[in-house]
């Protein structure tokens, strides 16, 4: 129970709730887009560096490889399972179901960062290599989602552009790049830049989650394409995927923090890399649909309920 209370009274989560309340009350509070974008780049560079420095100390372990394989497998597989529920229970057509399913196979960087922050406060911080797992999980789901959406269609034009876009999208490059820099620099090289990338990190996360709360709640308020069934799936997916991820993490023998983090990654849905890729590859799909589900429903659910839940689950079965 500790982690639930710790989560709900931490300033990080309180700022998120403040943002949601402000948006629900239709306040005009807004963080300039350039700032929000800048903060998200900061968060990615910071966790990349931190992960790289940690791995430079711990070295490459079998755990790392196992977690990476598990993560990639989850990212590939989840869309197939989600697609079935989206077309069946959710009543979506093939293209929209494919587009939405890709979001759930992929991951949310901010959900992961918030979870790491909360877990670390509970002395169960995930291993440094989980940042690499995060980066690896971003893209496989896009391929699965596209295959589902394009099933039975003849390829009209080469998807070289998309593949490039997906593999070299900003967040993958920044996460992997700063992970590599952290590896090379190690703790000594990291020291002079820690005053920017480590010490104010939690505060920046507060500020960023204020914005995320605003954006998520506005998305929910203005959602028009949403149905009760889709909203239900937006909560069911993280519950199921998160449980699968946590169980898998325990089975492959990860430590409790990394197990919970794998659960959170599986539970989370992308709202940066995947929407842009889907808009490009499946222009006929309705962006209002997948953004409302991933950003409006699943993201807040995970931040407020999912994170403590998978932590508790990982502790219980770990």
């Amino acid at each position, binding site marked *: 129970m500790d982690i639930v209370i710790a989560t709900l009274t931490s300033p990080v989560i309180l700022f998120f709730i403040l943002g949601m309340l402000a948006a629900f009350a239709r306040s005009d509070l807004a963080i300039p*887009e*350039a700032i*929000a*974008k800048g903060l*998200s780049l900061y968060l990615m560079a910071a966790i990349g560096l931190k992960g790289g420095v940690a791995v430079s100390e711990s070295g490459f372990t079998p755990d790392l490889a196992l977690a990476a394989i598990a993560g990639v497998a989850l990212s590939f597989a989840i869309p197939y399972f989600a697609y079935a529920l989206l077309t069946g229970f959710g009543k979506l057509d093939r293209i929209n179901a494919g587009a939405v399913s890709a979001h759930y196979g992929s991951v949310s960087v901010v959900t992961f960062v918030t979870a790491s922050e909360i877990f670390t406060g509970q002395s169960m911080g995930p291993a440094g290599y989980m940042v690499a797992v995060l980066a690896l999980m971003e893209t496989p789901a896009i391929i699965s989602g596209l295959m589902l959406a394009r099933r039975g269609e003849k390829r009209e034009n080469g998807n070289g552009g998309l593949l490039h876009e997906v593999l070299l999208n900003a967040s993958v490059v920044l996460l992997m790049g700063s992970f590599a820099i952290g590896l090379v620099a190690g703790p000594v090289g990291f020291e002079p830049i820690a005053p920017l990338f480590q010490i104010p990190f939690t505060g920046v996360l507060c500020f960023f989650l204020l914005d995320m709360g605003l954006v998520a709640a506005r998305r929910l308020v203005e959602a*028009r394409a949403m149905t009760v069934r889709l909203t239900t799936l937006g909560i069911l997916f993280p519950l199921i995927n998160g449980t699968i991820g946590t169980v898998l993490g325990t089975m492959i023998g990860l430590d409790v923090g990394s197990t919970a983090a794998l659960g959170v990654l599986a539970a989370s849905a992308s709202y940066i890399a995947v929407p*842009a890729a889907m808009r490009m590859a499946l*222009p006929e799909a309705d962006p209002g649909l997948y953004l409302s589900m991933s*950003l409006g429903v699943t993201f807040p659910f995970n931040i407020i309920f999912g994170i403590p839940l998978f932590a508790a689950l990982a502790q219980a079965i770990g």
Partner: protein
Amino acid sequence: MVETVTRKRIEILVDKPLAQVPIRAAADAGIAGYSLVPVQSGSGRHGNWRNDRISGAENKVLFLTIASEEKANALVDALAPKLDSHSLLLTVSDVQVVRGERF
């Protein structure tokens, strides 16, 4: 007075991730010059949107090009089938330009 000739001004509102669609279509129609103008928010049959950079999937941009009538027609013809599927908003109007041979 300087001599001016009539050319077409084509304005296309397009989602940022799809901006390559009019750019490529213009290139195929022989139009090399264009400018992209930012748009900050809007409303239509699909509801409201506003620029947010968290998920840039719904951000829009105004593709603007000046071209000869012939090239403009080619561009409009090429994009017509995609107007609905890609939710493009396309308008064409007449403008006077000074150095007509450039377009």
